Structure formats: structure tokens, C-alpha cells
């Protein structure tokens, strides 16, 4: 059978995947708004979001919204703890040390959650019905619609946070010009601290959204985090709408690549895109405010 008959189906799954990558990428961008730190443990926050909600739902029998909210608060606390215990002591360290430290955090979170919550893959029940929606011959899970809607709402929320509040302005100031922010009395450490909390919350939210669609296990965070980072770079490092665009482009390309290559190679597609975009246009599609093209 010709795989092109599945084209609409690949399209819809690509859009769903894209929304997820966009959510993960938003977490990276939130931290980049406060400082030029890249948190390689971002994917683990997503994983924690799914896994903790699962155990709250099934272990403590909490109602769904309560479990989800508790999880988000918990993961935000984990984000704060990560900042205080690892990033703050290393705030003056070199890039390499920071990369290795956040990779260490990533190993710690994934292995610890494997110990605490078990290593089996987990799936949450969908928010509403499990009946697929039929639309122009494409069947789509209602959860995918939830993912798209939530991504949109989160984007508006993050836009308001960064463009309409003093806090967001202060964060952006401390990222673009650290010395100037210091002179204006903005506490840079506090800004990065808050950004870690927000990005952990965004990550946990993404994790809760995707666990009904894909199985989440203790080890699935790393790859998801890397792909989210690729999406952020692809769209334009440091821009909210860049992260959204990059996420959807990445999801669609990855999904549509199944038309021409075997499915096992799917994971490599994102990294090939990364190498191409870094070589030809490191600024990303929309252009990044942080990357000066002359220096690349």
C-alpha cells in the first residue's frame, strides 16, 4: 500500500507532536529570557509532570484537576530546588561546567523517579472522551485538540508575562544586559530563580498534556527535552513565537518524514534538522535576539 494514503493522518499526528515540542521549547525559552543558561534537565520536568500525576491519580486517588495542580506545584518546587542547589552555586562557572551540571541533574531526576515511581511506562486517562473526532477524513484524538488549545492559552499567558508585566520586563533586561539590569536594581539571581520555577511549571504542564497520548516512562524525558531545545533553536532562540513555530515545523517534518524513510530513523530527523539549521541559519527561522550573525 502506498504510504501517501496516510498523508492526512501523518499531518494530524505531526501537528500534535509539534504542539508538544512547542510546549517543551517554551520552557527553554522562559529560562533564556532571564539568563543565557540552557537547562538540559528541562525534559525531566516534562517527564516528572506525567509520572507524578499518574501516581497521584492512581496511588492517592485524587481527582484529576487536583492531581494535576499538585503536580505542577511539586515540579515548580523541584525547579526551584534545582536552581538553588546546582545553578546558583555555579552561576559564575563556564558553559561546559553548567552543561555537565544540568546533565547531572537530568540523570538524577530520571533515575530517582525510576526508583520512586517505578520503571514501567505510564499513561493517564484523556481529559474528555476517548472517541476519535472525524474531520475531513482525518481522525484525531480529542486530547490532541486539548493539547493545541492549552498550547495557545499558555502562549498567551507567557506573552502577557513577558510583555505586560514588570517582572517579565525585568527578566528580559537581566538576560539582554546583565550589567545594565544590575545598575537598575534588578536582582538577577531572583529573576533566574523565578524563571526556573516558571519553566519547570510549563514543563510539568506539557507532561500532563502529553501523557494521555504517549506513554511516559522515567527515561523518556531526555530525548523529549533535546527535541524541545532543537525546536527552540529552529524557530529562533529566545523567542516565544519562535519556539511555537519551531515546535510545529519540527513535529510536522518529523511526522511527514515517515513517508520517505523507515520509522526507526525518525529520531535522527530532528538532529539532522538541527545540524542543518545550525550550519545555514543559526539565528533560526524568525531570527534570534541573542545571536549576532557575525559571530557565527
Amino acid at each position, binding site marked *: 500500500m502506498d504510504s501517501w494514503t496516510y498523508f492526512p493522518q501523518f499531518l494530524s499526528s505531526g501537528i500534535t507532536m509539534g504542539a508538544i515540542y512547542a510546549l517543551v521549547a517554551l520552557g527553554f525559552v522562559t529560562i533564556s529570557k532571564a539568563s543565557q543558561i540552557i537547562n538540559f534537565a528541562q525534559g525531566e520536568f516534562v517527564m516528572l509532570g506525567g509520572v507524578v500525576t499518574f501516581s497521584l491519580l492512581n496511588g492517592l486517588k485524587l481527582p484529576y484537576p487536583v492531581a494535576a495542580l499538585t503536580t505542577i506545584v511539586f515540579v515548580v518546587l523541584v525547579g526551584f530546588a534545582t536552581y538553588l542547589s546546582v545553578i546558583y552555586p555555579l552561576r559564575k562557572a563556564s558553559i561546559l561546567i553548567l552543561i555537565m551540571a544540568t546533565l547531572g541533574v537530568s540523570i538524577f531526576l530520571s*533515575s530517582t523517579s525510576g526508583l520512586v515511581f517505578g520503571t514501567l511506562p505510564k499513561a493517564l486517562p484523556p481529559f474528555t472522551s476517548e472517541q476519535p473526532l472525524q474531520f475531513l477524513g482525518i481522525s484525531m484524538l480529542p486530547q490532541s485538540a486539548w493539547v493545541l488549545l492549552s498550547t495557545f492559552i499558555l502562549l498567551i499567558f507567557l506573552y502577557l508575562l513577558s510583555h505586560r508585566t514588570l517582572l517579565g520586563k525585568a527578566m528580559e533586561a537581566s538576560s539582554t544586559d546583565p550589567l545594565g539590569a544590575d545598575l537598575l536594581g534588578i536582582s538577577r539571581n531572583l529573576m533566574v530563580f523565578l524563571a526556573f520555577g516558571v519553566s519547570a511549571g510549563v514543563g510539568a504542564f506539557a507532561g500532563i498534556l502529553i501523557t494521555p497520548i504517549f506513554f511516559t516512562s522515567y527515561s523518556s524525558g531526555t530525548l523529549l527535552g533535546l527535541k524541545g531545545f*532543537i525546536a527552540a533553536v529552529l524557530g529562533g532562540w529566545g523567542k516565544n513565537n519562535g519556539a511555537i513555530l519551531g515546535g510545529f515545523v519540527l513535529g510536522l517534518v518529523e511526522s511527514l518524514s515517515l513517508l520517505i524513510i523507515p520509522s526507526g530513523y525518525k529520531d535522527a530527523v530532528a538532529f*539532522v534538522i538541527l545540524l542543518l539549521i545550525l550550519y545555514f541559519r543559526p539565528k533560526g527561522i524568525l531570527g534570534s535576539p541573542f545571536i549576532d550573525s557575525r559571530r557565527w
Partner: protein
Amino acid sequence: MVEKKKEFRKRDFFYLVPLWLLSLIAPDPYLYHKKEFRKKDLYYLVAICLAPLIWPDPHFHHLMVLAGIYAILSLGLGLFMGYAGQISLGHAAFFGIGAYTTAILTARYALPTFLAFWASALSAALIAYLIGRPILKLKGYFLALATLGFGEIFLVIVRESTDLTGGIIGIFGVPWFSVMGFSFDTYLKQYYLAWGVLTGLFLFSKNLVRSKVGRALLAVAASEDAASSVGIDVPKAKLDIFVLGSAFAGLAGSLFACVMSTANPEAFSLGFTTLIVMMVILGGMGTIYGPVAGAILLTWLMDILSRYQEFSLPIYSVILILLLIFFPDGIGTRLNVRVIYLIGYWAKKKKRDEGKL
């Protein structure tokens, strides 16, 4: 009358004893730039030769074989990261390329291992040359991400091209390393093989960093603009050292395949990359003694931790983060200086307290 203070604090012993012990083992890059050949080198060599004879425990031999192989790998990475100041999170892929080249050539086509050994270095260097030019244009986080992406692509290709690499299961039945009919079939022989190769490559790197090339690398690490303004071809210098480091990794991978008699993709994942980068950082960047010391240290640490089964990874990551926070320059760096400073501090303390100094 000035009240007489205590001569020394008891807690100073806690610093001094482990610091002094460590300073015996760990080399200090800041004191190592003056003399070309030191007695200490000879001591190290004698210690390496005698250690397996003094301690005839097969487990110790096997661990030290692994430590030697990782030391070759992190020596190459140390040249690239420590001297040229770049970041690579994809070095495990070159290790894997070396291991798979050897495994395929010997287990499938029954070539002699000695030939496969050199072919591994060549193939790793060739692939490094092909991807080096575009990747090394990047800096900082993006260089790290690009090399990491290369490593992941390598893993996916290895897992999926089942005909060539055997997929997830890998390739079994790689013969022992043998030269001219002499087979390295015991752990003791493999120990001398790995450490012999390491000694040769170490001497090569030691001469390299003292040569014009090595000085050029230091200049590139300090400032690329300044380096290019004094006539150093910066892209070429970076590419050369990247290819050289990858060739080292290929050699190490070839030895690894021969020693473990297998090659499978799990050995070259992101976790392994983290481990070898940690070896370079903990040994101390910008020194060639450091990666070797780091390799021995971390191989031992991993072996001790493997007793704790499922708790090993959390403990390992906590130790890793603590070491990064407290020793970001490497464990050995400035250790001698710190000890000398402490001794001097105590020696002068009495005089200072009496107001003579």
C-alpha cells in the same frame, strides 16, 4: 599581653591529609610547564608497570584495562576540550565508530586485529574530518548541542541498520587483539596492551602540546580573534585537533571491542559521553596528565557504585554535581599550591601570633 591563640585548628587536618594524599597522585598543571622531563614521570611509568604484578587480582586488572582505554579516549578529548577550549558531547560516537569498525572487520571479514586497529583510527578520523568543518564553526552551547546531535544520529543509525551493525543486539565474537601471532588473551596481557598504547599516545600528545601546534591551540582557546590576527589558521587548527582526538577515540574503541569481544549501541549513549567529559573536567582542563587521572578515578568510582544496583545512578549524579560545584577546575588543579600554602600558613602562624611578622 596578647592572648595566645591555638596553634592550629583541628579541622585543618581534615583538609590537609586528603589534600596531601591527592597531591601525590594528581598532577598539577600549573606546576608542570617548566621542565620537559621530570623524575615524577619515571615514577608514574614504573608504577604502571609494577602495579598489576604487585596486585595480582583479575578484577583489578580488568578495571585498569578499562581505565586505560577510557584514558586514551579522554586524552584525545582533553586535547580538544582542554587545549583548544572547545566542547564536544559527541565523542562517544567516535569511540563507537572505532569499536564497530574493528568488530565488523574482524568478526565478519576475519581481518587481523592489528589491521582493524589502524582502520578504526582512520575511519573515526575520516568521519571527524567530514563533519568537523561545518560543526566547528559553532561555539559554546550550540557546539555542544551539534556534537550531541551527531552522537544521537550515530546511535540511531547503529540501532537501525541491522544488516551492518547487528541492531540493538550488536556484534559478538570479536577476537582478542593479536600482533604477529601473539594473542592478548589474559587481563594481565590486555593491561600492558592498553597502557602501552596509552603511554605511546601520551608521549605523542606531550610533544604535540609543546610544539607550535600546541601553542597555537592554546592561543585559539584564549581568543580566536587574537589567534587569527597573529597568523594562526583558526578553523584548521580546530579541525586538526578534532580529527586527532577522534582518531584517539577510534583507537580506544578498537581496543574496547577487542577486550569486551563485543560491540553494542548501549555502550556509546549520552550517559557514556557524560562520563568521559567528566573524566576530562575532573582531571583538569588544559593538561594531559589530568584526563588519565580522571579516567582512573571515575572508572573506580563507577565500579564501586555498581555494587549499589539501582541506587548507583542517583548516587553517581549527586557525586558528579558535588564534584562540579567544589572542583570546577579539576581535582588535581592547584592542589600542590593549596598544600604548600597551608603548610606555609602554619609555619608562619606562630611568628605572626607573636607579632614578629
